[in-house]
C-alpha cells in the first residue's frame, strides 16, 4: 500500500534532502538520468587519500529517487571511495526500507547508486586506468 512505500523516512529525505547542492571544487562530477521517468541525478565528490571527504547531489525526480540519493550520500560520506564498489542494490533497498519495489520503480531507487559507481570508476580511470578496469569488473553494477 501507498502508506508502506511512502513512509516517513522517504518523505523526510525527499522534503529535506541531505547533502544536496553543488560542490565547486569537486574532483569528480557525474550525471545520469532514467529515460523511463526522467529522474535525474548529479553526484559531486571530493576525494582525499581515497576517502570521500565531501559529497553533494543535485537532481529532480520522484520521492524514491531523490530520497535514496539523499540516504546514499549520508552512507558514503567519510568512507573509502573504493568501498562504493561493494554497495549492492539490496543495501539501497534496505536503506530506504523497500525490499519489494516493482521493476519500474526499482530503477528510481537505484539511479543514485548507478551514478555514484560511474563516478568512482571515472575517478580511478582518470588516475590509474589499469586499476579502473579491475574496479569496474568488481563493481556490482546490477
Amino acid at each position, binding site marked *: 500500500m*501507498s502508506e508502506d512505500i511512502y513512509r516517513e523516512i522517504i518523505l523526510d529525505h525527499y522534503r529535506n534532502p541531505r547533502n544536496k547542492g553543488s560542490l565547486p571544487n569537486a574532483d569528480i562530477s557525474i550525471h545520469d538520468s532514467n529515460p*523511463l*521517468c*526522467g529522474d535525474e541525478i548529479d553526484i559531486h565528490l571530493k576525494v582525499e587519500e581515497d576517502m570521500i571527504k565531501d559529497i553533494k547531489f543535485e537532481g529532480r525526480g520522484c520521492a*524514491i529517487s531523490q530520497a535514496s540519493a539523499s540516504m546514499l550520500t549520508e552512507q558514503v560520506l567519510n568512507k573509502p571511495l573504493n568501498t562504493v564498489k561493494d554497495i549492492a542494490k539490496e543495501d539501497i533497498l534496505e536503506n530506504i526500507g523497500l525490499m519489494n519495489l516493482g521493476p519500474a520503480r526499482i530503477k528510481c531507487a537505484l539511479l543514485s547508486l548507478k551514478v555514484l559507481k560511474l563516478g568512482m570508476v571515472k575517478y580511478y580511470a582518470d588516475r590509474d586506468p589499469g586499476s579502473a578496469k579491475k574496479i569496474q569488473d568488481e563493481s556490482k553494477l546490477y
Partner: protein
Amino acid sequence: MQKGALNVHRIRKDFPILSRKIKDKPLIYFDNAATTQKPMSVIDAIRDYYMNYNSNIHRAVHQMAEEATHAYEATRQKVARFINSHSTDEIIFTRNATEAINIVSHAWGEDNIHKDDRIVITELEHHSNIVPWQILCNQTRASLDYIEVDHGGYLNMDRCEKILQNKNTKLISISEVSNVLGTIVPIRKIIEMAHGQDIPVLVDAAQSVPHMPVDVQTTDCDFMVFSAHKMLGPTGVGILYVKREILEKLQPFISGGDMIKEVHKYETVYNDLPYKFEAGTPNIADVIGFGAAIDYLNRLGMDKIRDHEIELTKYAMDAMKDIRGMTLYGPLDAKNKGGVISFNLGDIHPHDLATILNDHGIAIRSGHHCAQVLMEKFDLSAMSRASFYIYNTPEEVDKFINALNDAKRLFGI
C-alpha cells in the same frame, strides 16, 4: 443517462479485463491514450483465425488461404470506409503509427526532401513525429522547424501562417490531437493553408481516429497514420493512408515477397497498390482482429463516442479544478480537447502519484509521455495523465478524485 448516449454499462460487459482487480480494487483504466482495452469480439476474431483458418494470404489457392485473404482484405475495406478514403488502394498496413511515419520519411522523404528544404512540425508532437524527421534532415541537410504552442496548449497560428509562406517548406507533419495536452489542432485550416503553397501534410491521427469522426477527403490530408491498438484493436497493426496521386509515385521502402508481381534475376516488377508497400507475411491475425474493433466502434457511432468523452472530460476537469494544488495543462474547455487530462498535484512527482493511484486500482500514465520537446516548453520533466475511453464512467472519476485527495494527505499538502 442522456438519450442517445453510450450505454456504458453494457459496453463494460464486453471487456473481460474490466472485471479484474488491482490491489483488491476494481480496475479503473485511465491510460487509454497509451493503449485501449480489447472487447471480446476482437479477442474472438483473432482466436477464430488461429483455430479455424490460419493460413498465409494472397498466394495459395486452398480454401483456408482464401478465407484468410478475404478476412484480411475485409479489414482494409473497413479502414477505408472508417476514414472515408477514396479506395482501399490508399490503405497500407504497417506495424504501428510510428512505422507508418518512418515509411513516409524514407520512401517519400528521401526522394522529395533536399538540402535547405524545411520540414515543419509542432511542439506538441510525440517523439514518433520528431525523430524520423530529425534523421531525414540530418541525411539531406534540410532543416526542422517547429510551430510553437502557447501555455494554454494551442498552436500559434500566426507563426504557422508565416512558416507556410516560406518557399523552402516542403512538408508539414502534425498531430491532430496532442497525446499530452489533448489539444485538437485545426488541421483542416492548416492543410488548406499548406495546399495553397503546394505543401503536402502528414496527419498523425493516433489520438484522433480512435475518438472522433475523421474524414480524409474532407480534411484533404496527404498522409495519415494511426494505430489499431489505441482503438480497441490488437497491438502490431498500424495504418498508413496516402493519397493516391502521391502513392503512385512512391518507391517501396521495405521489399521482398508479396510486394512483387514478377521477379527476375536482375529486375523486379512491383505489385499493384497498396501491396507494393506490404512486403513479407503481414500480421494477419491482428489485422483481422482490427476489423472486429472497427465493427465495434461503428456499432457505437463515433459521434456518440466523442460526446461521451467530452462529457467525462468536463466532469473530471471540473472536479480536479476544485482540488487545491492542482495544475491542469492544455485547453480547459473539454470541447477543444480529446479525452486526455494532463496535470500535476502540488510537488508530488507523477511517478509517486501513479504509484499511489495504483494502490487504488487506478491506472494512469506518468512521465514525459514521449513528448520531451513539449515538457521542455512547460519546463517540466514529467506530468501525470488520465485518458478516457468508451468504458469509463463518472463513478470511476469520483474514485480517481478521492485517490488524488488521498495522495495529498499522504504527502502532507
